[in-house]
């Protein structure tokens, strides 16, 4: 009986098995370890276009505005707060009053129709997050948001993935700061952070790691 397959099919069969296994293993590994954390998927480190080219670098880094001047409710509410146009106009009714760049601000002020800022940090709805508890218990702005004073257009510094949240929730003492340093963009953990952090945790009454990492702490 005539052969159905030529002889080299023996090797082809073996090679195809090995290649398939390699493709699955490497492809799966690359996807699962690299792609799902890439800024392509998470949008971390990607500057977001806004209706006005508002620069945190200029306002915070250059002029030295405090975070709370605009984000007024960060200390006592879940939401840090997006400033109304009137906050902008506190200064811009006096400075840069004819700048074409600020035309949308002025027209917003005249019409009473708010500016449509694009959200940069969008946490999933199933995760409960509260700014005030973090700010009042020693977690500084820059720990999560990065050096905002150096961002011309705002971007999300971190992925907001659960593993990122858990980094601190599992070891809060590594990032805790004294109360007066919370809004300091330049703060770096000191050399004795381990000791200081543990003291601060006691001082702030930070609950146990079991409670900090309990499912219902964030998924309510």
């Amino acid at each position: 009986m005539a052969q159905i397959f030529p002889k080299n099919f023996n090797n082809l069969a073996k090679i195809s098995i090995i290649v398939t296994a390699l493709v699955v293993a490497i492809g799966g590994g690359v996807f699962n370890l690299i792609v799902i954390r890439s800024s392509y998927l998470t949008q971390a480190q990607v500057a977001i276009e806004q209706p006005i080219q508002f620069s945190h670098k200029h306002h915070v880094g250059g002029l030295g505005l405090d975070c709370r001047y605009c984000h007024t409710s960060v200390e006592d509410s879940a939401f840090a707060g997006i400033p109304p146009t009137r906050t902008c106009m506190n200064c811009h009714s006096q400075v840069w009053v004819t700048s074409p760049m600020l035309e949308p601000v002025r027209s917003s002020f005249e019409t009473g129709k708010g500016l449509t800022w694009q959200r940069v940090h969008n946490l999933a709805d199933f995760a409960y997050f509260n700014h005030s508890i973090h700010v009042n218990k020693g977690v500084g702005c820059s720990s999560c948001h990065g050096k905002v004073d150096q961002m011309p257009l705002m971007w999300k510094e971190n992925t907001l993935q659960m593993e990122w949240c858990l980094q601190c929730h599992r070891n809060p003492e590594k990032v805790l700061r004294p109360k007066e340093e919370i809004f300091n963009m330049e703060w770096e953990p000191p050399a004795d952070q381990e000791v200081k952090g543990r003291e601060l945790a006691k001082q702030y009454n930070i609950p146990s790691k079991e409670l900090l990492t309990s499912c219902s702490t964030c998924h309510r």
Partner: protein
Amino acid sequence: MEANSATAHQHQEPVLKDVIPVVNPGHNFETVSDKISSIVLRERTPITLIMALGIAFLVMNLLMAALTKLLYQGVGVWGLNTPVGWGLDITTFVWWIGIGHAGTLISAILLLMGQKWRTSINRFAEAMTLFAVACAAIFPLFHTGRPWFAAYWLLPIPNTMALWPQFRSPLMWDVFAISTYGSVSLLFWYVGLIPDLGTMRDRAKNQIVKMIYGMLSMGWRGEARHWARYETIYNLLAGLATPLVVSVHTIVSFDFAVSVIPGWHTTIFPPYFVAGAIFSGFAMVLTLLLPARYLFNLHDFVTMRHIENMAKVMLVTGLMVFYGYNMEAFFGWYCGNEYEFYMIYNRMTGPYWWVYWLLIFCNGVAPQVLWIKKVRQNVYILWGITIIVNIGMWFERFIIVVTSLHRDFMPSVWGMYAPTIWEWMLYAGTIGMFIFLMILFVRALPMIPMFEIKTLLPQSKVRHKE
């Protein structure tokens, strides 16, 4: 194992007069291959089968519709709500997993015990196992509501949540039990097919068909080396599959038994689930095999011996299951716990009383007619019984899942559960898919292992003339 049949049959086998043979007389190697392979390669597909395929395909589309609706709108389209969080989905999941058990039992345990009558039916039952597992897997996957995330929830894959699944949960064990079961069953079935795929390749006339069977048979040439390796791997897989017969449904029963719900939290669950699984599995094998035997005229290979033996397995496992029901009722009273007592009292007289009594009739009472030899040998009555058992086993899981949940500890959260049209469509759809796949199987692969049947023929019992 069968390789040394030449030596194994040196001694004269006792001749029993009333024992019906496993292969009817008058066959030799040629006629066996001819008869079985020609169903696939030569004969025209019976019109009944084409019609059945069409109907099964239509029913299978209910599955597509039900899943589309589910994914589009969410699990709210099902009738589930507090306190009944598991309904038709888990009921049907357990039902399908149970059905698969006949395949593993026949292929592994009966092989290791040297039961020759398994030969004609093992491939059919194993195919059924695979398709039943495929149907079963749909339910736990889709009852999560977001099956595309289920990979992370079910399997320990490194992920961006910095979390592993809960290894202490029986739901997690279940994932491993079922995926092991599925993959071992698939391997076992495929390895058992290889020699026959070689035969199919050699008998095919069309070049493309030859190539397809050729690739699937992985270069099988029937050399002594091939046979030696085949026997080794087949027996090894049988050894691997044997614990699975007991472990899979034991772990499925842990999904319930490890919880604290009255009606679930019982030690009797593992053995009673396994017996029930084999019971329903054999019922389903008969439900499908009897029509196939008639349709393809397989009376020579699937004899009354097979049918009677399967009916006996059903009778025995049915009695075990019935014992389980009685013990549940007994312990409800004997344990003296008011919640346990109320659970069994509510099953018998509560809003789902009719389901409970139908279950007792289907699984406890109806199979008792199998004590009568005339009934075991009457294919029509037997087929009817298998249908009753299939329904009964589904009711059993419904009773376990739903009646245990719908009366919670606090009367304020008591509720009722009624499946919605989408749940029924999903259930019907998996039945359609199952039958559709079975029909494709009998049409594309030899449904009876030709080479194994040959070892049962007188022709294989040649001895050296000394």
